[in-house]
């Protein structure tokens, strides 16, 4: 029965009505799906797709900001920008690209321009987007392009600012240089784009944010084939701020000229502020070659040069301070009362400690000697004794307090800290105990001790100003384009050393006699009419063999000692403190001394000393205990 009914129904002639109804339901289901899809695209995905539509039609043209200028302390420009010409081509605008490129290559005297276009295309250059085919054009090339415009469809000249260091290699390490931003930089710097300039070294790097300004841009509407239709919006660029440095152009020049072709460094600071007046490192490089885009061969030459011209010796060179370290011993000993001004030791030209002889530089010895003469004549034996009395940790504490063996905090990358050894340090570094004999080497600034020229300059400044350790700074002010000061850089005090005035007076008096006493080691820095306080030093490059007294000039250049000279003047109210090292020059008094003298003389010529100047500020707290650190 059921089987029959099924047959009966299936045999019926189909009627249109139900079939039309079935079709209608399919149709409206499909239309509903279409409506749903439209809801998805136009409501749910609207934001993302609208952004894509804008990206389609809007092309952003970046206008990099003009980089800020750099001035010396007297507002004389050191770094500015000059126009640099580039040849650009819009390949789509050239009916016969091969011919145009051939002509362009002939005019410019260059080759392989096709490759630049191909490279740009490989990197997804949109149509009608110009390609820079030649940069830093020489004037004759510019003229050639200008006069052959009609034969070069699609080619045009573009001017862009190029960093210009007015005095070539002057203060190169301090000023630094700029270069094109790297892919690695781009990952961490969202505001930068491919091809942007960025400070790579020195001040250019440290003050990148100040100098750079804000790039402007134009929003340009383009059609599907990339033709520019109109400008939608323009954001003007904001030029970078200018920097007024603390260095003096003339002083810097004098310092660099005085070091000359020798390898060495000089740091001159204002002891009352910590402002750097000059910072020289020789040999140097010309930062302009970086602005023009340094060639790989030139870069290789710079980095492999054995004299390391890229190294800023003033902050990256670490050397044993030699006898200049005796200033630290003297202050430590007097403050510790281990030694008084009348304590006397006998110098026979060397002492035996353990089974080794520790020599004084003066073979015949200094006889009976007290602190004053020990500084003036730089007696090693006296300070061997002082060192034993103090112990390495007391020396280290005062050395640290005077800014040695640690970074000065100057706003430059890659500053080296140097080393001031102590029992702790040795335990950490070598897992070994401190041997008392090692204290003797430390006492005369040898052995593990190493410092940078900047640290010694800051130490000299601290002794000069009565015990304030400043943070060295090379920027005085940031100015807006119209010259109004945007930011000032007041002196920063890193630490107050509570040194008895008597102690300081004694050390200063001895340092004055280094220059002026008949037996002083620093005659070379004597200036008429100005009391210069100084200390010489010799940094051993190689340890002498036991008992040997090698004559310096008999050694090959690279084994010769470095000569140190630290000084400040005028001794009673110091205006300038200097540390100078000349590498492999033997004794500091004769090599670095004259350099310091020239810089001092230049300084007092530029800034004549006035008798009315107040003396160096007195220590803040005279009754404080003799602890070196108060930061």
């Amino acid at each position, binding site marked *: 029965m059921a089987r029959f009914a099924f047959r009966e129904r*299936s*045999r*019926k*002639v*189909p*009627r*249109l*009505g139900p*079939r*039309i109804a079935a*079709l*209608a339901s399919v*149709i*409206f289901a*499909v*239309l509903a*799906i*279409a*409506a749903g*899809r*439209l*809801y998805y*695209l*136009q*409501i749910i*995905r*609207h934001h*993302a*797709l*609208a952004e*894509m*539509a*804008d990206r*389609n*039609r809007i092309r952003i043209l970046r206008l990099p900001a003009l980089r800020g200028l750099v001035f010396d302390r007297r507002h004389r420009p050191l770094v500015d920008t000059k126009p640099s010409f580039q040849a650009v081509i819009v390949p789509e605008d050239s009916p016969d690209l091969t011919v145009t490129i051939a002509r362009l290559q002939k005019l410019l005297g260059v080759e392989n321009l096709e490759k630049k276009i191909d490279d740009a295309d490989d990197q997804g250059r949109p149509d009608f987007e110009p390609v820079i085919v030649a940069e830093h054009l020489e004037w004759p090339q510019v003229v050639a392009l200008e006069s052959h415009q009609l034969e070069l469809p699609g080619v045009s000249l573009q001017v862009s600012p190029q960093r210009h260091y007015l005095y070539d290699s002057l203060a190169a390490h301090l000023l630094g240089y700029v270069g094109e931003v790297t892919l690695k930089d781009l990952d961490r710097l969202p505001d930068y784009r491919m091809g942007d300039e960025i400070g790579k070294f020195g001040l250019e790097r440290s003050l990148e944010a100040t100098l750079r300004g804000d790039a402007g841009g134009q929003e340009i*509407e*383009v*059609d*599907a*084939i990339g033709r520019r*239709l109109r400008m939608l919006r323009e954001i003007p660029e904001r030029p970078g701020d200018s920097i007024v440095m603390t260095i003096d152009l003339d002083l810097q020049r004098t310092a660099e000229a005085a070091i000359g072709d020798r390898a060495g460094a000089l740091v001159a600071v204002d002891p009352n502020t910590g402002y750097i007046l000059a910072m020289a490192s020789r040999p140097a490089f010309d930062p302009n070659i970086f602005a023009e885009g340094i060639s790989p061969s030139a870069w290789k030459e710079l980095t492999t040069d054995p004299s390391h011209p890229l190294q800023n010796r003033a902050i990256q060179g670490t050397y044993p301070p030699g006898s200049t370290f005796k200033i630290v011993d003297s202050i430590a000993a007097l403050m510790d009362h281990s030694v008084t001004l009348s304590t006397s030791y006998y110098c026979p030209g060397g002492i035996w400690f353990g089974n080794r002889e520790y020599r004084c530089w003066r073979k015949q010895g200094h006889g009976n000697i007290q602190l004053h003469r020990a500084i003036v004549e730089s007696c090693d034996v006296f300070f061997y004794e002082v060192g034993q009395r103090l112990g390495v940790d007391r020396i280290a504490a005062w050395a640290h307090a005077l800014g040695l063996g640690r970074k000065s905090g100057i706003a430059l990358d890659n500053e080296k800290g140097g080393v001031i050894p102590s029992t702790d340090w040795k335990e950490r570094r070598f897992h070994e105990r401190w041997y008392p004999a090692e204290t003797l080497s430390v006492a005369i600034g040898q052995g593990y001790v190493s410092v940078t020229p900047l640290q010694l300059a800051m130490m000299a400044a601290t002794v000069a100003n009565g015990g304030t350790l400043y943070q060295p700074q090379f920027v005085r002010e940031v100015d807006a384009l119209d010259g109004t000061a945007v930011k000032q850089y007041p002196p920063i005090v890193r630490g107050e050393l509570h040194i008895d005035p008597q102690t300081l007076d004694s050390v200063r008096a001895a340092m004055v006699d280094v220059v002026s006493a008949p037996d002083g080691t620093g005659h070379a820095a004597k200036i008429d009419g100005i009391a210069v306080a100084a200390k010489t030093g010799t940094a051993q490059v190689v340890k002498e063999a036991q008992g040997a007294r090698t004559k310096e000039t008999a050694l090959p250049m690279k084994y010769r000692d470095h000569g140190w000279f630290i000084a400040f003047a005028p001794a009673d109210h110091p205006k300038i403190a200097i540390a100078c090292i000349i590498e492999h020059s033997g004794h500091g008094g004769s090599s670095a001394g004259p350099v310091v003298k020239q810089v001092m003389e230049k300084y007092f010529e530029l800034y004549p000393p006035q008798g009315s100047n107040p003396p160096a500020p007195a220590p803040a707290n005279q009754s404080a205990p003799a602890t070196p650190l108060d930061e």
Partner: protein
Amino acid sequence: MPTIDRRLLYHFDWTVLSLALALCGVGVLSVVSATWGGRHHGLDPLVMRQLVWVGAGSALMIAAALLDYRALAAYAYPFYVVAVGLLIVVAVAGHSTGGSRRWINLGVLNLEPSEIAKLAVVLVMVRYLREEPPKGGWGLTHLLIPAAMLAVPVALVLKQPDLGTGLILILITATLIFVSGLNWRVMAALGLAAMLAAPAAWHYLKPYQRERLVSFINPQSDPLGSGYHIIQSEIAIGSGGKWGKGFLKGTQARLNFLPEQTTDFIFAAYAEEFGYFGSMALLALYAALIARGIWIARHARDRFGALLAIGFTGVIFWQVAINIGMATGMLPVVGITLPLVSYGGSSLIAMMIAMGMMISVNMRRYLF
């Protein structure tokens, strides 16, 4: 001209007429916008031509409405022969653009015979299927003649190549066969066979053949990469958002990111400027027209009239579904116009005539 019964005018279907004209209006607006060259350039000549098509189409629609649709049955086969003949003329002496040969140059206009073929196929199928099917519906043997009549124009259209029209011809024939009474079991068997055959066929193709098939499906595939059209179309539609960017303010279409913005992708250009509510309104117009077509089919006086209404409603539906499906990225790109909206004389006039015939069916449902 046959005498007009006064009652005819009384029963004239203003709904179909006004919906068709509204859609034409949307089309003209979209063509204006897509070709707008700024205030200084003014209207593109394309707009004037489209207006002329709308005018001519309206006249022909009314003429078709006044014609008694029952008389069409007699002309179905000759009309079919003429349409196939025109397709052959295209294949031999057609005017080709963009790699396909679709038009016959008649001086004042380029006639696109594949549009005429749509009308002819509907007519000829309805003519054949108006007979009552045997008990249980059409069997396989009954389908041989429609299949043969379908195969000739489809083959000619695919040769052009115009996959879109070929697809429409197949879909509309299938729709008519289904509605007119296809045996359920035959339908199930055919459906199953198609389902099994499609992936199997694809599986046995060699990679280069598959690629050929893809480029055959989409002959104008962009050198910028396959899918460029789809992406730009989706961007245009989606960037319109809720209310659209406003008339003449669609950047995707105006700046030529959108391909075929006056024809196959006109929906994207419209949706960009008028947004979600605009596209819903357009969809509603189509839904209303389709609903009216179905209503006419259900109330028609005879099978011929009912199937005629279903045939033309089906053409509208399938073209809308495939065109919007393609513009919104749900279907691969095939060249199918948005009926009554896309720019193009042949397609517009053919559609208007179809609407006229539908009105004719509706007007005559009371006459005996």
